[in-house]
């Protein structure tokens, strides 16, 4: 009896100890939660409130309901800029993922046994560390149609006979340049993700496949790709979210005009001009939410497509 009472007291003492620990946990989380609420949650709600207003960013706010949203869905220029974004992102993701996958296969091949993975990983990731402003000005200089090094090299090698106006000529060429620049910047990040995913696959699967007579392509398609699907999905969706918000490179590379012929005008570029150049903050806020909805739909579709085959 006495020992049980002592046990009870001990348990009670233990419970208050756990509760004390829990209190400290909450307190340590508090700074982050507060900062998150102030800098992430509040702006979202405030932006939604602005989207329901006719507001210039200063002066009076007039409630207009969902008029801004109706305008966004009829906005020809917004549709055009979103189309531009899709084109540039499309090329980016294909090159980015393709190159990252290829490098992943090479570095992970148990027959090649490539060395220096950590060095190569650092080198491939370096473009991601360069500020976008520097990248934009670097490529503007390299790709200058008259004095740029790129044209000089291609002409010296005989690949082209006359200079190509990469940035101010054809709309498609300029968009392709932005796509390639984006792929160059981000393939290292994708490579690291995919390598992490592949290294999580047990080597015995590959060994077993080779022993059973599978060639490289069969190993890749039947072993590597299915097991890599979750990571691929993560990379694809994060790339989609980031890619559809493309702004910095086209903005800087076009000299803030979106030229040639508005081909580098992306959805966020258009939103930015609406907010800060045309002083239509309410409409820009509505565009932001419409973009959010569109990205959510795209992500849902991508998620379903990539998981569909697995379900089968």
């Amino acid at each position, binding site marked *: 009896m006495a020992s049980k009472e002592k046990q009870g007291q001990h348990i009670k003492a233990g419970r208050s100890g756990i509760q004390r620990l829990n209190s400290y946990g909450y307190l*340590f989380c508090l*700074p982050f939660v507060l*900062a998150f609420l102030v800098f992430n949650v509040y702006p979202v709600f405030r932006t939604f409130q602005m989207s329901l207003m006719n507001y210039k960013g*200063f*002066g009076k706010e007039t409630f207009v309901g969902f008029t801004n949203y109706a305008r966004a869905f009829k906005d020809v*220029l917004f549709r055009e800029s979103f189309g531009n974004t899709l084109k540039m992102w499309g090329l980016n993701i294909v090159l980015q993922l393709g190159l990252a996958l290829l490098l992943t296969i090479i570095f992970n091949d148990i027959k090649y046994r490539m060395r220096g993975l950590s060095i190569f990983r650092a080198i491939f990731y370096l473009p991601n560390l360069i500020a976008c402003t520097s990248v934009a000005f670097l490529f503007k200089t390299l790709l200058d149609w008259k004095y740029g090094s790129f044209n000089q090299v291609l002409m010296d090698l005989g690949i082209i006979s006359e200079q190509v106006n990469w940035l*101010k000529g054809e709309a498609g060429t300029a968009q392709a340049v932005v796509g390639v620049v984006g792929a160059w910047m981000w393939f290292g990040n994708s490579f690291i993700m995919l390598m992490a995913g592949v290294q999580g696959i047990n080597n015995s699967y590959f060994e077993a496949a080779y022993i059973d007579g599978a060639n490289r392509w069969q190993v890749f398609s039947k072993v590597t790709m299915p097991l890599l699907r979750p990571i691929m999905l993560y990379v694809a969706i994060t790339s989609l979210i980031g890619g559809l918000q493309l702004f910095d490179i086209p903005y800087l590379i076009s000299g803030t005009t979106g030229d040639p012929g508005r081909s580098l005008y992306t959805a966020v570029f258009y939103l930015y001009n609406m907010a800060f150049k045309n002083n239509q903050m309410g409409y820009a806020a509505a565009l932001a939410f419409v973009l959010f909805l569109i990205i959510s739909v795209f992500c849902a579709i991508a998620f379903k497509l990539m998981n569909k085959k697995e379900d089968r």
Partner: protein
Amino acid sequence: MKKLICLLLALVMTLSLAACGSTTDAGSAPAATSDGEKTAAADEKIVVWTLANDLKQFADRYKEETGREVEVVVFDSADYATKIMQTLGAQSKDLDVFVGEPQMLPNFFEAGFAADLSELDAQVSEKLVDYTHQAGQDEDGVLRAVSYQACPGSVIYRRDLATEVFGTDDPEVIGEKFSTFNKIAETAEELNKAGYKIFADTGSLRWFSISSNPWVNANNEIVIDQDRLDYFDTAVQLYQNGCVANASEWSAPWYSSMAGPLPVLDADANVWEMTGDGLAEQVAGGAKTTQVFSYVLPSWGALIVRDNAMDNKGKFGVCSGVCSFFGGGTFLAVNEFSDKKDAAIDFIEYCTLNNDTAQWWLEASNGDVVSNKEVLANNADFQNESFGNQNTYDFYLKEMEHIDYSMITGYDDACKEAFGSAIVSVQKGEKTKEDALKEFYTVVTTQFPELVVPADAPIN
């Protein structure tokens, strides 16, 4: 103990975030005053935010004459408007006077940043050039900003080249050759045959885009009248016939062209990568050259031409163009949230409405056009040796009489930009004129849904 230290560190981090973005009063706060009571202006230092160095000279002179301290803070022009919107959006008292160019003023007025200056209205109306009075008023007609300068525009042309090609450098005769867009096209061809380019680039014509009608009329209809169509056609013609030097405004070739011969540049040349020394080397190396005959700029542009003319100094003159126009200008306003409004108004009155100050600035700036009508008239006989001893003040005073401020709308910048893009697309052969105009209407009506395309628009 360790837990306590960790908690304290976490709190410090949280508080440091909360401290970001707080606005504090600069210096000591002045004594509170009741409405209508004048503050002791004599001992109060006021702070002026501006985007050019001019006001530093005004501040120094103000201190010499009145003993009152003025601190002038100069911001880069690219950041200035954003800085003002952010600072005054937080109702800061860090500044007492701020400046704005005419295109910035409507936003500043609507945001409630500029105090009422009605007490100066009678003087402004009497003393200053009319368009500056109108530009300083909000949409209810309340005066909220005053300028010490006026910026009427002109064609700044090379007298020596005019004599060579046209047989005369008389401003009246040369002005006649720039009086309509069709005449500009003819003049351009004549100059081209003689080996000269009428303008550095076709952007020069944009100053004449408001000639007969505002961009948007009272019915919110976008106006593309015959003058604007002529402007469009002339800009395309000059570009496609090689009548311009392809030296974009503010680029190195543009500045170099004021001093002498310029290498002939392709339409696609990247002028932003060029340097003055590089161009001079090309000229010295025997490259094919040309010279730019004229520049279309407001009066401050005439000073830029003068300052970059080098051996061509004295060879320029000014004449009228298709229409009278203005561009830029520094308007002073009082911060609505300032506690030193009386001191601020006193400084603004000194800078803008004092005849002695206007005369001093006219001389000290070596050619800036002041907004004071009486001072300009008193200097009408001044012979400006930088412009071939022409009576430039007399010329500008007469030009300003024709400036019609009622033609200015809040849509002008957007319309001009979209129209310019339409012109460029046709110049480069990317679109037909009709498609370019349709695109222009689409862009403008998308940006401003309240605007409409009139039934008689030139796209059908």
